[in-house]
């Protein structure tokens, strides 16, 4: 006996079924990822004890005390500024270096190219914890402990391989013929890189920038090991300092600090996300 397939329900399922499945999956993923963030946001408005004791997700009384406490911390603006300075430098410099390196790896067939590209990954393969003591020794010999330079050097060194690997893929996917046409039109290497390759690989550049930015903004182990002065700390370091196993952890302040730490990064993400989408769309239109 054949099952009736042309009924209105079957038709509806046929039309909406895949969509419902996609929407269900997406909704589940959004809830899964957003719940901790929503909890953290709501908790930042609660009384510290209420976070432990109340079963309600919403605060009984919406309080701004935690935000006031965080913003009135004597060093907050310094830590924020340190994070901004280190992140800007550790995003722009690796990006410039990575663009040049990736272009070389993608376009020039030199000896040991693939081995070198693999070796590039070494700084990211070695666990950071095992780098701390030798790095501390090295940097103290150079007199760089408790300076911006030590953070610039370590952050840049860890970001360049990541950005390079991303960009090698993007540059490699651009047809050589386009670059050759530019060469025929008289463009030298710099012009080709600047006016041909970079615009076409722009989504990759933005992706690499976002990842470098995120790495630098959230970096913790290097700053913990190489800095011990309060005025040289970054936001993640200070967030860690708020952890208190000897008292009742003030999760309201902890979460408020976390949210204020994440907020600038989130804004940059939102800003760049649009650029990435625009770049992809414009690339598609051009092709």
């Amino acid at each position, binding site marked *: 006996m054949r099952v009736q397939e042309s009924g209105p329900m079957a038709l509806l399922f046929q039309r909406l079924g895949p969509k419902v499945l996609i929407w269900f999956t997406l909704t589940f993923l959004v809830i899964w990822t957003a719940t901790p963030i929503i909890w953290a946001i709501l908790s930042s408005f609660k009384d510290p004890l209420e976070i432990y004791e109340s079963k309600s997700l919403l605060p009984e009384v919406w309080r701004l005390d935690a935000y006031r406490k965080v913003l009135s911390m004597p060093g907050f603006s310094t830590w924020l500024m340190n994070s901004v300075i280190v992140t800007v430098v550790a995003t722009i410099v690796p990006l410039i270096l990575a663009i040049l390196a990736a272009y070389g790896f993608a376009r020039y067939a030199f000896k040991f190219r693939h081995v070198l590209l693999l070796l590039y990954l070494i700084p990211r393969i070695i666990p950071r914890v095992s780098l701390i003591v030798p790095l501390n020794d090295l940097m103290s010999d150079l007199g760089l402990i408790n300076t911006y330079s030590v953070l610039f050097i370590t952050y840049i060194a860890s970001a360049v391989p990541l950005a390079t690997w991303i960009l090698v893929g993007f540059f490699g996917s651009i047809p050589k013929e386009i670059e050759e046409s530019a060469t025929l039109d008289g463009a030298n290497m710099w012009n080709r890189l600047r006016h041909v390759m970079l615009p076409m690989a722009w989504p990759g550049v933005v992706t690499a920038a976002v990842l470098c930015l995120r790495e630098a903004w959230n970096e913790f182990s290097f700053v913990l090991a190489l800095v*011990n*002065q309060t005025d040289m700390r970054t936001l993640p370091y200070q967030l860690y300092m708020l952890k208190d196993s000897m008292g*009742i*952890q003030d999760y309201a302040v902890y979460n408020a600090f976390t949210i204020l730490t994440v907020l600038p990064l989130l804004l940059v993400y939102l800003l760049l996300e649009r650029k990435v989408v625009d770049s992809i769309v414009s690339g598609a239109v051009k092709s």
Partner: protein
Amino acid sequence: MLTAALALETTALSGLSSQLAAQERTLKVWFGRDQFIPEDQFAQFKAENPDIAVEFEVIRLEDVSAQLVLATRSGNAPDIVQIQARDITQLALGGMLKEFDAQIETFKEQFPDTYNQLSPIAWEGASSADGKLYGVALFVQSIYLTYRKDLLEAAGIAMPLETTDKVLAAAKAVSTIPGGGDMLGFSLIGCCVAPTWELPLFLAMGGQFIDGVPQIDSDVGIEWIEFYQTLMRDKSASPDSASWDSGQMRAAFVGGRAGVMHEGEHIYVEIEKTMPYAEGKWTFERLPTRPGQTEPHVQSGFAFPFVVTTAADDDDAVVRALEYLARPDFAKQVAIRYQPTTNSAVSNDPEYLAAKPWAQDIAPLAASLVPLPTHPTRVIQIYDVLTQLRDRSVADTTTPAADLAKEYQDLVNKAAGL
């Protein structure tokens, strides 16, 4: 005219050079928490010692040993550092701490008033296993049995509790008070942090340490493990205890949702905010013994001493800074907002007594504190095993305590390198 100008310039220059010379002495201090820093941030110290500049930082007690090692390697170590007493011997053996016995004698001669105010544990808590002195322990914490008088009365439990069987009975009774809702008998920790609540109970119950290694495979050790298992078996503690960290354990009591806990005095500051001590709803006593215990009761404490590092080259400045921190005025500030002090003069201070209404009642218990024994070099490894044992005792109530004691004694011995 020219001579006068030259004379003026010479005077100005000599003034400047003497000013520079006066500022040459610099002292670097690391505090374990913000709360340990004097409110005046050494302003009075600077006024009294204009030639000594003090720089201070907060390096968490949990990380300070590792940070000190790194800072010493990089030639960036502080002169004075606040650490956990358990780490003294290891740091001293690593050449990071400076023997300070002779300088403490100078302290005694130079500042007899302050010196005489300090309890013996101020020195014991800053000494290594072989008795060498490295600084001074101005703040010492101990764990007391803390409970809700009103709930125990409602459950018909007589106080004081004194022995573990009575504590277990009290916890069970509180958790089954009619209409008590989800009231917990005992607020228990089961996760994530060092066994600093449980080891003092082990000692109070007559537990022994040999060369810093706890003898848990013993009658006392078995009863100690059984104590925690019974709390869970009786449903006196939260079924979620296995995932509770110190914050959750404390919040349950402070929030009025638990009848008993073992806790340090610094948390009483938080309890006071929700349940003023004067209202008589809660109280405390020394940690319980076993029923019929013949071993002496031991009330142990763990110190957060200020020790002197090998980077310190100005002993006079260090002695002055230690004396400054030890003064009743500054020790009192910390004692009011955070950890109890070893400066006995503070215990009679009216401001202190007003801020901590329980202070007079706790003073006799705190007077007999002895430092918690620790292994000289393998304390972290031993604590890791004991943390696992504590967590297991709370999570696993079916394995016999004797089996757990044997299993974890082997692990503790291995951790101690035996």
